[in-house]
């Protein structure tokens, strides 16, 4: 088997379409992170800047930002600013919230530094060792949260870095989703707390290992990284508002981050779907998907109860059999930030609709589910500081999954349907009920018993 040679990587696409800015100076903290002496010696950062990329951005991306923001939006928050205006929240209250968030971000970093000091070298060590050379940090403009890419001197991307405080609706987001508040009302997914993406990214990788499906989501580590090019809310304050800097506290460009391996030779699933739709053969995609891969992905998504598994969060690798020229598509789940919610609510699995045959799940999958030791993941969740309710929700859904997987003719579609209904007020009963698929579809498609806020109040 070989990987199709005409595949264009995401990186190629981003590079050619100038959707990136180039920055410098990635530095792993060398004094506090136990393994940092190894990492820092491997990640030697250049001071040079890729001027071509800077030019392209200055003529496109930045203009869009200038047009977007309300002049009164002094912190360049973007979407949340509309709500501040609607609710007439006084400036002093916003400043107070920002100051609180800064303290929380700092304390969170200190807390995780203690954890990192106890950890052994992580799964990305090999990548660090293979790239003992000058590296650059690239900010990727695409998406709603800040994502940075580490590239080697051949301009090959090798790592993806996501600072926690630059996620969507976190304080230092630079993509119109900055947010001084931290409560359920101002979140993307009500039951996925803000400032926890690093935990979810790492746990999903560890979960894939525990399930015996490593490779289905990128390898991941947590690290504290500093870069003078990371974004801080204070950098958006104009000269006439400099007095605000004292009130909101000093900036900190040393950040708690997730680091993930970059997966080369891929494109996103949405692009693949569009290619099939363009040639008038949407359903043809079903003939090239790998059944085992789809089952494994569903297993990962059930266990993590992903709230954000939309088509853009799957990467596609195309494998061509050199003898038969038969093409097989395998998917990889990326961006697991909205996984392991506080409660089993908000399940979002786009693969839901791909099980058109609704055949019974394989014995292979049943065996994986029955032999899964959920207590190992529950223990990891404790180590990774997940809340009690998040752990309890995980235990509950695995128990339900094990029970469902013992049903003789159950399909991927039916399990997804029942898992989606877990979010209703009598969700567990619905998930384990004897309702037929059409009955379950009717319930899911209606607002009957739809739970939004009554079940849990954050």
């Amino acid at each position, binding site marked *: 088997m070989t990987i199709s040679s005409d595949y264009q990587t995401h990186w190629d696409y981003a590079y050619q379409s100038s959707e990136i800015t180039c920055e410098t100076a990635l530095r792993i903290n060398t004094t506090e992170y136990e393994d940092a002496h190894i990492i820092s010696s491997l990640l030697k950062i250049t001071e040079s800047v890729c001027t071509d990329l800077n030019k392209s951005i200055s003529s496109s991306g930045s203009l869009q930002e200038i047009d977007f923001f309300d002049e009164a939006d002094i912190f360049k928050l973007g979407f949340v600013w509309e709500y501040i205006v609607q609710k007439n929240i006084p400036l002093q209250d916003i400043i107070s919230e920002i100051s609180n968030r800064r303290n929380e971000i700092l304390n969170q970093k200190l807390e995780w530094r203690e954890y990192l000091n106890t950890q052994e070298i992580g799964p990305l060590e090999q990548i660090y060792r293979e790239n003992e050379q000058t590296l650059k940090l690239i900010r990727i403009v695409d998406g709603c949260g800040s994502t940075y890419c580490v590239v080697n001197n051949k301009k090959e991307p090798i790592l993806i870095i996501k600072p926690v405080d630059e996620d969507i609706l976190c304080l230092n987001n630079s993509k119109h989703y900055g*947010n001084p508040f931290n409560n359920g009302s101002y*979140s993307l997914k009500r039951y996925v707390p803000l400032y926890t993406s690093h935990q979810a990214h790492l746990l999903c990788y560890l979960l894939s290992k525990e399930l015996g499906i490593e490779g289905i989501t990128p390898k991941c580590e947590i690290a504290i990284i500093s870069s003078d090019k990371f974004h801080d809310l204070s950098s958006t304050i104009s000269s006439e508002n400099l007095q605000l800097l004292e009130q909101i506290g000093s900036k900190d460009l040393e950040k708690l981050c997730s680091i993930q391996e970059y997966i080369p030779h891929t494109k996103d699933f949405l692009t693949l*779907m569009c290619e099939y*739709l363009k040639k008038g053969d949407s359903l043809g995609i079903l003939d090239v998907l790998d059944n085992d891969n789809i089952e494994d992905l569903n297993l990962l998504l059930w266990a993590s109860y992903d709230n954000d598994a*939309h088509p853009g969060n799957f990467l596609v690798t195309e494998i061509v059999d050199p003898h038969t020229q038969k093409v097989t598509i395998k998917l990889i789940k990326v961006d697991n930030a909205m996984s392991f919610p506080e409660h089993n609510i908000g399940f979002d699995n786009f693969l*839901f*609709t*791909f099980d058109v045959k609704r055949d019974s799940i394989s014995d292979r999958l049943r065996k994986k589910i029955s032999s899964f030791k959920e207590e190992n993941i529950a223990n990891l969740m404790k180590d990774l500081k997940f809340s009690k309710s998040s752990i309890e929700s995980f235990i509950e859904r695995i128990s339900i999954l094990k029970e469902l997987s013992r049903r003789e003719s159950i399909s991927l579609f039916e399990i997804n349907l029942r898992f989606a209904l877990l979010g209703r007020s009598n969700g567990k009963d619905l998930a384990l009920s004897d309702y037929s698929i059409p009955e379950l579809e009717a319930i*899911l*498609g209606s607002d009957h018993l739809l739970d939004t806020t009554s079940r849990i109040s954050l």
Partner: protein
Amino acid sequence: MKLIHKKTGCVIAEQKGDQIYINDPFIEAEIKLKGIAIPSFLSENFEGKSIVRMGDPLFNKAFKTVYLQFNLKKDAFSWE
């Protein structure tokens, strides 16, 4: 008006009059079954609803401002 995937030129959805038609069968099936989930920070813009379904007067707005933004990677598409 057509919603075009820039890289492939594929028309993934079309608006005719007040109606949005989704051309991709998987996306259409997903939305028909589950509706469009509204992020909590935007729910006030949708009369406090957590889900907007097809047929709801707010559906077009939900598709354009929520589904396109958070489920389909808005930057990959253009309305023409």
